[in-house]
């Protein structure tokens, strides 16, 4: 008598596949930010998933699979689009003067957000996407992993393959660039009164000028 096998437990590969696909939205979100194209993001995620399935023996059960998958997305992207990795961009990036500070007045900062929604002004929300896309890759990736995917510094460091200190500095610089881009948009959109901006916004600079003037 032939008995057809019952629909038994999933094979190791199928369990792994199922668990990996549970992180598909995160992989796709990050891929969209990295490639800045939904079409390329789909290709990137597909490659990363196939690669993850092949390399699943290297995944250590008990570790964070989302971070592991996002690392595969990132390395696949870097190997594909950025032969030389990220560092070169950092050196040439628009961060030549790390001391340049987007110091804004309290009124300006208040004008940029929507107090009721606890979010940015709706007009600036629209600009956020463009501002984010304009960020250099390593800043964009760090900001997205932290702010969208809510990864820890350690997890981001593992994904990006850099020390935690580098993650912190990329995050800091990335957010600063984002804020100054949004600030420019806010001025252009008339959200911020340019006359109000005429007063010195950099407190240190203002004090230094005062000191010089007082001599």
């Amino acid at each position, binding site marked *: 008598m032939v008995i057809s096998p019952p629909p038994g437990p999933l094979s190791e590969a199928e369990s792994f596949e199922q668990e990996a*696909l549970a992180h598909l939205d995160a992989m796709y979100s990050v891929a969209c930010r990295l490639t800045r194209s939904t079409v390329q993001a*789909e290709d990137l995620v*597909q490659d990363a998933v*196939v690669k993850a399935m092949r390399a699943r023996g290297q995944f250590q059960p008990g570790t964070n699979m989302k971070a592991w998958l996002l690392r595969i997305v990132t390395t696949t992207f870097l190997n594909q689009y950025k032969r030389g990795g990220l560092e070169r961009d950092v050196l040439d990036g628009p961060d030549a003067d790390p001391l340049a500070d987007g110091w804004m007045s*309290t009124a300006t900062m208040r004008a940029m957000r929507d107090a009721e929604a606890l979010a940015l002004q709706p007009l600036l929300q629209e600009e956020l996407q463009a501002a984010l896309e304009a960020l250099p890759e390593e800043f964009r990736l760090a900001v997205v992993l*932290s702010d969208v995917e809510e990864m820890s510094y350690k997890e981001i460091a593992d994904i990006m393959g850099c020390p935690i200190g580098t993650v912190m500095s990329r995050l800091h610089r990335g957010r600063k660039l984002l804020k100054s881009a949004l600030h420019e948009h806010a001025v252009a959109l008339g959200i911020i009164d340019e006359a109000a901006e005429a007063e010195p916004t950099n407190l240190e600079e203002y004090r230094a000028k005062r000191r010089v003037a007082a001599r």
Partner: protein
Amino acid sequence: MKAAPLPTPSPCRVLAPALDTYLDGELSPPQVVEVETHLAQCSCCRERLALDRALRATMKNKGQVRAPASLRERLRVVLAEPAPRTVAPSLGRCLHDSATVLPFRRPDRVAGAPLRALTKAPRPAGRLVSLAERRSRTPLRSRHVVPFAVAAGVAFAVSLHRPAAPTAPAVPPPPASLHAEVGLDGIVHELVSLHAQPLPPEVTQPEEIRRFDPFVGVPVEPPKFQRFGAKWEGGRMLPLRDSRAAVLQYSMAGGHRISVYVYDPRRVRPESSTLRQRVIQDSPVYVGNVRGYNVAATERRGVGYAVATDLDERENIELIAASAP
């Protein structure tokens, strides 16, 4: 004379970088106390914090994108294949450098619970069992999963009652490595030849066409052209170098005929000297005229489709879009 002491930086200046880290929840408890003490006294830093929070909330809100259903379907098709492949040829080369994928050594904070299921899942008893299991499982999966991927409109019951695929010995083994020896031009010329001088169909029942799957190497789903007034006539297999493609034939009022070629795009180079590339619904579609017949070709979710008709180009594009929903 001693130089004047440097001005003490304002606490805001010192703490501003820490606000980021504070919001990220990565400060040590003493640092948190220090930051919060300052925040209690400084409206400027409170405002800065509020802006940072607003920025993050917006980022999270706008940044989380759901993977489109098309991607999930595509992955199901790709993962159901015994030998994984990539649809994007440009990305293909990084598939092999799995050396860059390194294991994590950190204990998991997020995915602990579901992982238990993984570690508890019993493994097949041995190599022979797992091979046999794979053999029996793979066609089962592709019969049930792939129809969803290719034609979402097909009811599940239909796919369950689909006739079984031919037994293993009748299925030609897939070649270890696929060489795309044929260009799109080769495909459309063969298609036009058959369209111009059609051979009688081998099967006339639409559901029988699925028996072609293992020979073609991709799921063959007859496109639904009813809304164009096209009537299904039948289908047959055609040699395509060392493999086969399926040709599906339809007729329309006014003596028009439609031939649809379903092929494994891994065997076909996506290049053509006679067809123009256009982008329809984010996918490249090759269109042109071959020996008086309008043709269009595209790849959707790992399946290649080409149509030849005596309709115009726009109608052809509509047909090809309907072939590959």
